[in-house]
């Protein structure tokens, strides 16, 4: 039943830019990590940042979320400038973040982890839909959060931000270190979320996985966006891509 509901509401990309990043610079302490990041994300899209380790992809997500203190340039979300906002304010505007290390809390059980992020606006997925997407979680509600397997922890990390009503999700390497069957499940989840109108900014090393879900790609290198193309232009750009990623 819930599955039918999920499939019912296909929302196409409306084309309006929800996120516009211009000349974003960021620092960890004294080290200058981002040297002018430019890209945008339109409503309903899945956009993937690709690049080698240490290129600045994670730092870009963290800068958008406001957890990196020293940042400059412009980040506009829903037509509001957020470069100076604190991360709790940014979350309340409807951006949700799933960090690379997953951030499951060991002093909370699965249910507490799931219910931790406060609802920031109406329209989040109800719990029964979340359990349809991730049936494993329902059976482990009373387990300690960090006792879950890596794949279950990743599902929990995604599940908990779906409740909040945020429509803009940032997922940092959600497939890292997971078995192929679980990667596939996460791929299906992203596709469903997209069909429900969520906008997703993805960071991935796993290019093959990204190509199954993404609408567009940006290449990040040395703290800058150096190229970008749509999924339809993928085959034409394969050679370039191999050079960029060194695969």
């Amino acid at each position, binding site marked *: 039943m819930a599955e039918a509901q999920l499939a019912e509401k296909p929302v196409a990309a409306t084309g309006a830019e929800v996120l516009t990043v211009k000349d974003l610079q960021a620092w960890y302490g004294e080290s200058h990590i981002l040297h002018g990041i430019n890209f945008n994300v339109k409503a309903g899209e899945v956009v993937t940042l690709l690049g080698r380790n240490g290129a600045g992809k994670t730092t870009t997500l963290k800068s958008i*979320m*406001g*957890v990196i203190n020293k940042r400059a340039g412009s980040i506009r979300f829903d037509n509001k400038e957020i470069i100076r906002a*604190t*991360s*709790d304010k*940014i*979350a*309340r505007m409807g951006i*949700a*973040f799933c*960090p690379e290390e997953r*951030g499951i*809390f*060991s*002093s*909370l059980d699965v249910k*507490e982890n799931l*219910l*931790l*992020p*406060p609802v*920031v606006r109406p329209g989040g997925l109800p719990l029964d839909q979340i359990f349809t997407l991730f049936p494993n979680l329902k059976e482990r509600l009373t387990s300690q959060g960090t006792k879950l397997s890596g794949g279950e922890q990743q599902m929990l990390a995604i599940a908990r*931000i779906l409740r*909040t009503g945020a429509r803009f999700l940032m997922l940092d390497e959600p497939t890292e270190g997971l078995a192929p069957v679980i990667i596939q499940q996460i791929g299906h989840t992203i596709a469903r979320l997209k069909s429900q109108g969520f906008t997703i900014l993805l960071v991935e090393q796993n290019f093959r996985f990204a190509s199954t879900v993404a609408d567009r790609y940006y290449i990040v290198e040395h703290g800058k966006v150096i190229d970008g193309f749509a999924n339809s232009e993928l085959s034409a750009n394969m050679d370039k891509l191999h050079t960029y990623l060194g695969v």
Partner: protein
Amino acid sequence: MQALYAQLLVGLINGSFYALLSLGLAVIFGMLNIINFAHGALYMMGAFVAYFLLNLGGINYWWALLIAPIVVGVFGMILERTMLQWLAGLDHLYGLLLTFGIALIVQGVFQNYFGSSGLPYSIPDQLKGGVNLGFMFLPVYRGWVVIFSLVVCLATWFLIEKTQLGAYLRAATENPTLVRAFGINVPRMITLTYGLGVGLAALAGVLSAPINQVRPLMGADLIIVVFAVVVIGGMGSIMGSIITGFALGVIEGLTKYFYPEASNTVVFVLMVVVLLVKPTGLTGRAA
């Protein structure tokens, strides 16, 4: 046997204060990563607020139980906003030195105006007298302190371990950055947590006023033992600090009966043993 029961009761009373104070220290340490040396001075302030309320405002003990923790809690939150918050991310030593300095200043000011001797604070009428339990005579006020402290400790445990607010608190203790990125105003939560811990100390101060009198150095004497309690129990655990607090009070009481010469040192001997065997404390996590 009468004497044994009497010492056990004294032990339980002291244990109540140890539990309330070490509980506050544990909550503050968890959220702020600060070893709050000002805790004893704030406990003393709680007793003084009760004294002022009664003698200047004619406001009785029962209101003092409510008002003193709020007044001292607000004072604590001002300390946190104006000073402690700037120490976030620095070594423990900075917080320890700052709060130690605050304790000395607060105690010095009170000593300047009130000397070192105790001011009387009488037991409220409703709690005067005692009950003969057959095997011993129980002063009502002392029974009240033990039971009320236990209830407050358990309520605090429930708040932290079983409610949504407590889940925020536990999560923010682990990873404040991520909790903030979920939309929770973590700095405000830290301030309120400090207020809560300090309020518990002030509440203990009010409870102790009729038993121990109101003295500027009442906290300075107590806090050293409380830190030993915290070291034994371990910093990380809420229930651990409650149980350790009561248990060590009782152990002290028993020592007073069986070997009075060691009653002032037994807690510190235990602390040394625990530090040698299990440096994180009996229930503590690795720091």
